[in-house]
């Protein structure tokens, strides 16, 4: 790279290109926000779902599981776990984790949730399952 293409031309392309593509990204983001209410089911969010999301966060569930494919890859996808286990199945699974784990197996901690908390977690997971996420995951196994 020499001759006609100078450093100041390269610099101008850098600043111009960055600003242009950042503005394009902002425009796409604004458009996304106008479409999201139809897809993210925000109208259905109840205080119980909000509580479920909080429990999801403060117990660091994402440190082992994925949610809509994002998180850690140590334990199953939970965005559609309601489809696999049903409400009661999910609650029973969380409640029945042995405190000392299962010998030789990947084990989930025993969180000692109350019934109210378990209901909130299930409500949150059901809400996530209802989001229009372009038909992901490919099948019920997640």
């Amino acid at each position: 790279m020499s001759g006609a293409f100078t450093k100041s031309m390269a610099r101008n392309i850098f600043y111009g290109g960055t600003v242009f593509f950042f503005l394009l990204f902002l425009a796409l983001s604004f458009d996304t926000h106008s479409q999201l209410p139809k897809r993210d089911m925000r109208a259905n969010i109840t205080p119980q779902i909000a509580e479920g999301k909080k429990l999801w966060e403060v117990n660091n569930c994402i440190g082992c599981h994925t949610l809509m494919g994002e998180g850690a890859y140590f334990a199953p996808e939970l965005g559609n776990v309601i489809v696999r286990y049903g409400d009661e199945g999910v609650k029973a699974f969380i409640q029945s984790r042995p405190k000392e784990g299962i010998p030789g197996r990947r084990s989930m901690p025993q969180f000692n949730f109350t019934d109210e908390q378990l209901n909130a977690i299930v409500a949150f997971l059901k809400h996530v399952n209802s989001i229009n996420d372009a038909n992901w995951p490919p099948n019920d196994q997640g």
Partner: protein
Amino acid sequence: MQFKSQAVAKPYFIAAIGLFVGQILFGLILGLQYVLGDFLFPAIPFNVARMVHTNLLIVWLLFGFMGGAYYMIPEESETELFSPKLALALFWIFLVAGAATIVGYLAVPYATLAELTGNSIIETMGREFLEQPLPTKLGIVVVALGFLFNLTMTMLKGKKTAISMVLMIGLWGLAVFFLFSFYNPVNVVLDKFFWWWTVHLWVEGVWELILGSFLAFVLIKTTGVDREVIEKWLYVIVTLTLISGIIGTGHHYFWIGTPEYWQWWGSIFSALEPIPFFGMTVFAFNMVNRRRREHPNKAAVLWALGTGVMAFLGAGVWGFLHTLAPVNYYTHGSQITAAHGHMAFYGAYAMVNLMMISYAMPILRGRAANSNKSQVLEMWSFWLMTTAIVFITLFLTAAGILQVWLQRVSDTPLPFMVAQDKIALFYWMREWAGVVFLIGLILYIVSFFVGGKEEKTA
């Protein structure tokens, strides 16, 4: 060294290496938990170990970036650092905050930590990579602002080169995009949408500016190639980075509730993301081939070439492998993602920091380069760690292909844990490659303490 205030970089580099060791030890714990599920359970559950592993990575890279910037900016600006005292004070604040956070993760259950640290004031915890308690997050902002103030003031009173401008844009971007970590709406789609404004716009955006700038700086110093040429390359590379990487954020918006058009925007722009990395590889080799001097620090030149190649492979090639929406539909959130993550972070960000440390540390210790004996050892550590990460990536890729096939593509999809059991062999091989990585890292540290005849003083 040319300016005595550059010496503040030294503690930053030492802390970076120390935290790097911690990261790798926890990586080995995690790798073992993949195959011996109850290893250290319930004392250190997987999610806690993973949080320590990824957070130590982020913190040591930030220490490396800060150390590198404190070393580079005075030399580029041709003036002493605005306030070396501030730089040292911020070092201790950041180190103590970082250590306290890690101790917090390990000492109490995460939910208790959240309660103790006032997560209910602003709920920001429990999101991947941004697990830090509120006081730590605020601490990061304070340290970042103090750091940027210090460097910006230094630059304002001195020379403003292209290399330091690109670095400062990268560092300011790092601070600005971190602010999105404080935004955590109840709506999980919005939460995820803006979470990526920190995570993606860091690693596939502004951090690449820091990478390019460090690489350009070390290439100028070690090859003696004309600054005009190097800075022109740098501008071209960072232009390609940002025009592909900003809209490339779209490859995270395929399956999280965002509109389907992101599958097109994300696929097309992120398919371009390997180009700037390829540019970096060509850049590094080209400059070294056209060198006008033989720099005595061969190890630093090796890291510079290595980071170009490995960033291209890890971030570029392994990123492209699963970035097209029809492919990603099957690979999303699988071991393929983990494979890419490991080689990309090592190749781009671990190696560029090791390059900067390799170049600057001998000078900070009063010599142009380490003894031949020490450099040979450092180059051994380069090859061991790099080969190990290549194998970690290959094994995880094999595991990922099998996982995707068994769990998602086959006519009779298997449950997650059944599929995991079937691919355990690859997790074992990954763990052994991890042990080799640790040996490489130990040799790396030993290389700092090996004497021998040193190259003449800098």
